[in-house]
C-alpha cells in the first residue's frame, strides 16, 4: 500500500473506519444519514469502503452529483442508474416510460436523455423513477449521493434558489413516501452551508431533520498508527524504529489520514524514515507558501460562509484560543476576546462559537471548555496569523 494523498483509495486500503461504518449501517436501519466532517477527513474513503461490502439485503446505488446543474439532469442521472440496475435484471422502469409517453404524446423506445420539454415535470419523473426502483426488487434501497451540496449550489446558481429548495423538499418527500428508502448525503461542502444560504433567502423548512447527522472524525490513535505502519511498509521505508516512527507521524498530524499519507509520501521522496524528518515535513507544510496541505482553506472559507458581523468574532475567537495552551471555558474565552476587541455581543459570540464547532474548527472537552479540534490547525492558525510569539 503506497501513500496516496488526495488520490483514490481501494476499499481494503481504508483503515480504521470499521466502527464508524457499522454505526452508519445501524443508523440506516432507522433513517437516512447526512455524512459530514471536515474536508479531507476521509468521507469519500468511508463511502468507498461502504460500497465495497454493503450488508445483505441492501441495494446501494452510488453517484457523484457534482457535475449536475439542473433538477432534470439530476433526475435523468437517477433514472439512468435505475435503468442500469434494472436492465441487468431484465426489468425496466415502466412508470417512467409511461409518464414520458404521456408527457410527450408518443412512444419512447430508448430513453437516453430526457427531452427539455419535460423539464418542468422533474418531480413527477423523480417520483416515478424511485417508484420503479423500489418496487422492482426486495432489497432496501440506499441512494448514496456524494457532492449533493455542490449540486444544490449549482441548481441554485442555474435555476434559482426556489428550485434548489424544491429539490430538497422533493427528496424529503420521497423519504417520507417510501419508508424503506434511505439516502446518504455527503460532500466536500457542508450541506448546512447551502441550507443556511437558502434560509437567508426565505427558506423556512428543515429538509434534513429526518436524517441522522454523522461526522467523520480523525482516526483513533491506534488506527492512525496502523495506517502509518502500513504505508511505511508499503513504501519500503527503512530507518528509525518503524512503530515509533508511525506513532510520531500519527501524533504530529492529529491522526488525520490525509496528512498521514502526505507525510509518508514526503518521506519517500527524501529517502528518509526518521523522526526528525517527520517534524521537518510537518513544520514545512505549515509554512509552505504553496500550501500543499491545503491548510489555507481554514482561513479562506470563513470569508465565504461567515457573515460580515460574524467574521471578526470568529477570527478573534480563533486568535485567542490558538495562543492558550489549555482549553478555555466560555467566560475565559469571552474575556480573552474582549481583551483584543471591543464587543458586548455575548449572544453573537455564543452563536459564532456554535458555527465554529459545526465547521470543525473547535470542539469542547468533557468539561465543556473550548479548544481547537485539531492541534495541527491550531499550529497553522498561529503561524498564519503571526501569533507564534
Amino acid at each position: 500500500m503506497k501513500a496516496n494523498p488526495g488520490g483514490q483509495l481501494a476499499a481494503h486500503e481504508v483503515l480504521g473506519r470499521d466502527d464508524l461504518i457499522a454505526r452508519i449501517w445501524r443508523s440506516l436501519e432507522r433513517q437516512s444519514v447526512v455524512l459530514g466532517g471536515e474536508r479531507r477527513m476521509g468521507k469519500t474513503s468511508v463511502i468507498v469502503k461502504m460500497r465495497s461490502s454493503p450488508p445483505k439485503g441492501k441495494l446501494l446505488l452510488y453517484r457523484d452529483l457534482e457535475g449536475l446543474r439542473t433538477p432534470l439532469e439530476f433526475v435523468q442521472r437517477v433514472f439512468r442508474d435505475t435503468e442500469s440496475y434494472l436492465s441487468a435484471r431484465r426489468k425496466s422502469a415502466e412508470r417512467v416510460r409511461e409518464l414520458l409517453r404521456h408527457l410527450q404524446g408518443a412512444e419512447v423506445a430508448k430513453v437516453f436523455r430526457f427531452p427539455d420539454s419535460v423539464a418542468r415535470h422533474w418531480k413527477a419523473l423523480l417520483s416515478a423513477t424511485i417508484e420503479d426502483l423500489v418496487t422492482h426488487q426486495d432489497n432496501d434501497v440506499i441512494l448514496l449521493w456524494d457532492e449533493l451540496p455542490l449540486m444544490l449550489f449549482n441548481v441554485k446558481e442555474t435555476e434559482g434558489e426556489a428550485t434548489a429548495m424544491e429539490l430538497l423538499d422533493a427528496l424529503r418527500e420521497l423519504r417520507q413516501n417510501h419508508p424503506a428508502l434511505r439516502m446518504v448525503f455527503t460532500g466536500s461542502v457542508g450541506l448546512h452551508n447551502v441550507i443556511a444560504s437558502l434560509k437567508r433567502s426565505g427558506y423556512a423548512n428543515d429538509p434534513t431533520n429526518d436524517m441522522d447527522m454523522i461526522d467523520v472524525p480523525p482516526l483513533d490513535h491506534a488506527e492512525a498508527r496502523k495506517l502509518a505502519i502500513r504505508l511505511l511498509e508499503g513504501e519500503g521505508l527503512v530507518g528509525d524504529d518503524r512503530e515509533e516512527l508511525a506513532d510520531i507521524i500519527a501524533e504530529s498530524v492529529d491522526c488525520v489520514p490525509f496528512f498521514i499519507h502526505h507525510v509518508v509520501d514526503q518521506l519517500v521522496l527524501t529517502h528518509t524514515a526518521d523522526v526528525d524528518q517527520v517534524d521537518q515535513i510537518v513544520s514545512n507544510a505549515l509554512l509552505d507558501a504553496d500550501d500543499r496541505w491545503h491548510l489555507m482553506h481554514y482561513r479562506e472559507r470563513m470569508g465565504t460562509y461567515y457573515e460580515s458581523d460574524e467574521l471578526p468574532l470568529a477570527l478573534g475567537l480563533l486568535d485567542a484560543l490558538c495562543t492558550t495552551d489549555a482549553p478555555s471555558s466560555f467566560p475565559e474565552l469571552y474575556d480573552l476576546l474582549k481583551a483584543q476587541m471591543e464587543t458586548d455581543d455575548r449572544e453573537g459570540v455564543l452563536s459564532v462559537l456554535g458555527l465554529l464547532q459545526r465547521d470543525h474548527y473547535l470542539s469542547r472537552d468533557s468539561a465543556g471548555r473550548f479548544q481547537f479540534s485539531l492541534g495541527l490547525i491550531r499550529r497553522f492558525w498561529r503561524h498564519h496569523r503571526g501569533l507564534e510569539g
Partner: protein
Amino acid sequence: MSGSFHSHFTPSLMSAEALEAVFVQRHTLAGRLVDLVRESTTGKARHHSLLIGPRGIGKTHLISLLYHRVVGDQDLSSKLRVAWLREEEWGVSSFLDLLLRIARALDAEYGDASLAAQTEALFELSPPEAQEAAAEMLEAYLGDRTLLLLTENLDDIFRGMGTDGQQRLRAHLQDNATWSIVATSQTLFGGVSLRKSPFYGFFRIQHLQELSLEEARELLSRIASSAGDEDLVAYLGTPMGRARIRAVHHLAGGNHRVYVIFSRFLTRDALDQLVEPFLCMLDELTPYYQERMKFISVQQRKIVELLCNTRPAIPVKEIAKRCFVTHQVASGQLKQLRDRGYVRSVKVGRESYYELREPLMRLCVDVKRDRAAPIRLFVDFLRLWYTRVELKGMLEGALNHGGLEVLYLTAAVEDEGESSSDPRVDACLEDFDNHMRTAEFELATDAAEELIAIRGEAQDFVRQSRALLARDDIESSLRAAEDAIDREATLVEGWTQLSLVRTKQQDWQAALKSSQKALELAPDHSVSLFIAASANLLVRGWEEGCVALNRALQVSDSTQANDMASAVAVTALFASRLLTPTTNDAETRKRRDEILELARNTKREAALEIGIGLLSAVLVSPAVSVETAKAWTLLWTEAAEAYPFLARCIRTAGVAYRWKRDQERSVLLELPAEERLLLERTIEQIQQRESDP
C-alpha cells in the same frame, strides 16, 4: 524516432534511449511516478500527480520518459491504456472535448478501429448526449484496464473546461475510479488550489526544481556522452569547461532547455565559430521567450521588461515607481512572477530586490531594439565566455578585419570597463567560501581553479593554495602560492600563504622569510605576525619568539581569524618547547606561566585554550610517548586552579593520555560529543596514515 536526436523544444519526439541518456536530477521522482502508475493498475487505488514548473524546466522530458518506461514495461502496459495529450491540446472547452481528445489519443496509440468509429458517431449526437455516450464508450473500451492520462498544461485544460467541465470530470473519476492522471502545469492554478475547486487537494503536487550547477554539469556531460563527444566530456571536467558551464548557468538560471541549447557552444573558442551559431540560437530562442511574455498579464510584462532593461537587481519601490503602480500592486505581481519562475528575489535588510531569473529573458527586449545596435545579450555572453585579456586580444586582432565581430568585441570590452562585476566570479567566490567553510576542500579547489580560468588573478592562486593546503597537498599548494607571488609580488596574502605552506612543511627558516616579506608590505598583518612569531621561536629561540608573539598579540584585534592564527602560534610554541617536558622541569613551568600571563594580559585566553586543546588532541600521535602525554597533562592540570579556562583542554589532554595508555575506545566517551569528535578525527587520521602503505 531513435538514436541520440535532441529536440530542444519537443522532448516528446525523442527516443526512450535518448531521454534516459540525458536524464538528470529526477531519478527518484521518475521511479516514484512509475511505481504509482503500477499501483494504479494492480488494485483499486488510483494515484493522480501534478508536476509544477516553469517552461523549459523539463516537464515534457519527465512525462515522455514516464510514457516510455510505462509502455516499455510489458506487464504494466497490458493492464492499462495510455492517452498522452501533447502540449498543443488547445481548444478543450468542455468535459466532452477532453473525452474526445482522450479517444483520439487512444486511437493514435493503439489504432483501435472500433473506437475510432464510435468516436465518429458521437458527432451525430447533441453535446449532452455525446458527453454521456463518450464517457460510457471510454469506460467500455477500458474494461478492467486503467486509463493513464498524461497531459501537459492542465491549467489550460481546466481553464477551458470551466467549473462545469471540471465538476463533470471529477464526478466521472469518482463514479468510475478507472483513471490515473499525471499532469503538468507551469504554475499552481485555481483549479487545484482554491478550496471551492472540484480538484482541490486531489492531486499529489510536485514542484520541479531548477538545476543546480552540479546537476547542470551532469546534464551537459550526459548530452556530450550521448552524442559520443568524448572530447567535450573531458573538456567539461577542466576548469575552463566548468567556468563555461557556470556562464551558461548564469544566463539560463537553472532552465534545462537552455543548457541543452547551449551545449553545442561549449568547446567553441574562436569567435568566428561562435558569432553566427550564437545569433542563430538567439533567433531560435526568441519566439520561446516571446511566448513566455505572452503567458503573463500586461502589468507583469511591464515589470519583466523593466527588469530586462535594468541589469542589477532593483527594489520593489523602484519597480513600483517605474511602472506607475502602488507598492502593494508591484509586490503582488512580483510574487506571481516569482512563483512562475520569471524573477528571483534577494532580501537585503528589510528590502526585497528583484532580478530576472533567466537573463536570457532579455531577448524579448533586445529583439525590439535598434537592429543596428549590438544585441546586449551577446555582449553579456562574450563577457562571460572570455577573459578580459582574451577579449582585448581578440579586439586588437579583429580591428584589422572589421565587421560584426568588432562591433561586439568593442561593446564587450567597453562593458568590461564599466562594470567590475562578473556574475561567474561572484558565484565562484561564494562557492569557494562555502566549500571552505563546510570543509569540502576538493570542491573549493575546483572553484579556485575556475576563478583562475575565468580571470587568473593572483588572489585566485592564493585561494587555490589555501584549498590545496587544507587537502594536505602541500607540493601543489606551494606551487599555487608561488604562482600568486609571480603574478603579484606585492600581494601580502601571497606571501602569507607561502609562509603558511612552509610552516606546514616545517621549513621554519623559509616560513620566517616569507612572513617577514609579508610584514615588510604590511607591518601589522596579524596572521603574518603570528607566523613570524612561531617561526622566530623555532629558528631564533624562546626569547625572540616571545617578543614576536607579544607584538603579534598586542597588534592584532581579537577577531576569529586572529584568534585562530594566535592559536596556531601558541600551538607551535608549545610544540617546540613543551611537548617534551618533564614534570620536574622548572624551566618548562616558568615558560608555561609566562605564556599564560601573556594570554591573560592580552585577553587571549580563548586563543590559548584552542591552541592547547588542539595540541592535546595531538597527544594520541605515536610521535608522542605515553610519558610525555602524562607529563603534558600534569603540566596543565597544575595550572588549572589559577587559570580556570584551562578546564576543557585538560579534559581533552587527560582523555588523550588515557586512550594512549590503555588503547580503549570507551575512554573517549568521557568527553562531550563535540570535543570527542576532534579526538576521534585525529585518531582516525593517525590510523589511516598507519594503514596506508
